[in-house]
């Protein structure tokens, strides 16, 4: 009963605008006080913030964000986008396609979709506006393109999933490759369909000379060198997945300063933005941990799992309920927080239904991608609109067609789990 009241309080507080991190830690602390006394509450408030931050595995969070921030402030990503645009700009909707292609490139380097959306909106939005693309369409492309960063490895949510479920992060990364590329493919198809049906949103641009196109390619070498450094480092065995973040950030810093035109101001800004995002994410993670300890002690998770598992449904029916739950949570709650909040509950249940842990990690990540752009709390849309000074409503309208594409893709991954499990099975 107390658990129910506190959970309701949490939902109400979040909906009426209390910062999510504060809502979680407040409700968790109050609940622990009622259930286990002041000693236990103070005990959790003592150990949880400290232990959550003092984690070597989670050091990848600030480092991958830093890498993206450094890249976004130099010319490395801009050159990458320019090459994509020279080669594809003349096709109808070509600037949007170039933005998706550059997003894939960015996703290979970065595990943070927020940073990806911030970078791409600074770089591709001015170009799309210059050629008369509709704001709504352009924002949708940028916001949805950013979500690729968490499916294509490296990926923050997959790292968290691996840590929480003791699943190999290396395998999870490998499993994300095909679904990630497939996702990019679905976005391309969505763009083409939209442009066909409504040509006004993306006027054609001039065709660029072949000479110009070829000349743009050499300029992408810093980005390619970074990809080689990070992926080559991981897959050759020189560095571990955890170390890749630090190596990538160092590489991004050196390359951006040496050839990417990164100056002192940009350097300082990158660090400041990284610290801001990091403390924001960790505040939510810490709050979610405190709240989950309260939930555990009330035995709600156990009861809920028992209840769901005893529903008179086939295994896939229960799985569908779980996926819908993730999508609904994704409307309101930060994706990282959802993963941490729910996995200790949901993961054992899904395993008891006999599903593959790697596959489920990818499904959870897919729902997280959708949550990043679904209203009312859609981080990528906020970031894209914030960086381009546009209305949030336009952003949400712009991503809607892509959300349908994502939904189709989830169904595809459920029906053909081999798309996910094939690459890791080769390991």
């Amino acid at each position: 009963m107390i658990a129910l009241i506190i959970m309701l309080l949490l939902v109400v507080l979040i909906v009426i605008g209390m910062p999510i991190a504060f809502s979680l830690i407040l409700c968790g602390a109050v609940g622990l006080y009622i259930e286990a006394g002041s000693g236990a509450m103070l005990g959790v408030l003592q150990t949880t913030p400290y232990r959550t931050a003092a984690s070597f595995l989670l050091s990848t969070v600030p480092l991958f964000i830093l890498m993206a921030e450094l890249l976004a402030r130099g010319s490395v990503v801009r050159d990458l986008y320019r090459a994509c645009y020279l080669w594809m700009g003349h096709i109808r909707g070509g600037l949007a396609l170039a933005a998706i292609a550059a997003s894939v490139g960015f996703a290979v380097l970065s595990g943070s979709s927020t940073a990806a959306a911030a970078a791409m909106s600074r770089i591709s939005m001015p170009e799309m506006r210059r050629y008369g693309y509709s704001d709504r369409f352009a924002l949708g492309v940028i916001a949805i393109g950013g979500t690729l960063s968490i499916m294509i490895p490296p990926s923050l949510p997959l790292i968290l999933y691996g840590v929480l479920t003791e699943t190999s992060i290396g395998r999870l990364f490998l499993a994300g490759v095909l679904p990630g590329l497939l996702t990019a493919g679905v976005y391309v198809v969505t763009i083409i369909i939209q442009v066909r049906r409504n040509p006004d949103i993306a006027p054609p641009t001039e065709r660029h000379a072949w000479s110009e196109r070829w000349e743009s390619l050499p300029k992408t070498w810093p980005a390619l060198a970074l990809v080689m450094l990070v992926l080559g480092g991981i897959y050759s065995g020189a560095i571990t997945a955890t170390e890749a973040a630090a190596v990538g950030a160092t590489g991004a810093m050196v390359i951006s300063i040496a050839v990417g035109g990164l100056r002192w101001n940009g350097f300082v800004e990158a660090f400041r933005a990284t610290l801001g995002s990091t403390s924001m994410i960790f505040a939510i993670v810490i709050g979610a941990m405190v709240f989950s300890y309260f939930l555990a002690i009330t035995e709600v998770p156990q009861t809920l799992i028992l209840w769901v598992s005893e529903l008179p449904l086939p295994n896939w029916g229960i799985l569908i309920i779980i996926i819908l739950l993730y999508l609904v949570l994704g409307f309101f709650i930060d994706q990282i927080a959802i993963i941490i909040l729910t996995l200790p509950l949901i993961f054992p249940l899904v395993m008891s239904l006999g599903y593959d842990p790697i596959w489920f990690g990818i499904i959870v990540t897919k729902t997280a991608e959708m949550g990043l752009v679904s209203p009312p709390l859609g981080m990528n849309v906020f970031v894209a609109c914030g960086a381009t000074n546009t209305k949030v409503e336009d952003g949400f309208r712009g991503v809607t067609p892509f959300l349908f594409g994502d939904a189709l893709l989830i169904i595809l991954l459920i029906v053909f789990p081999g798309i996910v499990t094939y690459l890791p099975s080769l390991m």
Partner: protein
Amino acid sequence: MNTARSSVTGHFCGGWRIEMKTIKRFLAAFENVLLILGGLALFILMVLVAGDAGGRYFLNAPISGVYEISEFYLMVSIVFLSLAHTQRKRAHVRVEFVLDRLPISVARILEFTYLMSAAIIFALVAYVAAKNGWKNITLNRWTTGVVAIPTGPSWLIVALGTAVFTVRLCVDAIDTLLAPRNGEDDGGGATTHSAIGGDT
């Protein structure tokens, strides 16, 4: 980031003006120092972990103790020393949909409540972290690795970061109440703070 736009924060007024101004200036300066230390920790983390990997691969000479130093000191500094600054920028994620549609007076009372209840919780966090840090120092507790590391001071980093965060929450809460009643203000909370803090 979706920051709470200025609707519920803003200027301060009356006799409070001078004191609040002084407090805010000191607070912002202090936050900036902590932010620089956090940035330094981030830079060291990046260089240490990359150096450890590189040293191992190229020279067969890894750096000892990277794991422990990263956990106990660098990560703790990165997360906690920037908390207050993040609040100053109003960058803690929230759902604004309902808040934006409430009358401004109601929204302000809500905002005040949010900030003060968070302040109470984080004051407790700061208190227990400080207490435990002090205990670990007086009992002289060290880890037993190749590089032995004292655990007490790292708890004091948590205490420091959350204590300053608590003060920031209180200041913002008072700010919210003292804001003029006539609705929309011109640039509001975050910008006002930045201007005062010098923001570097």
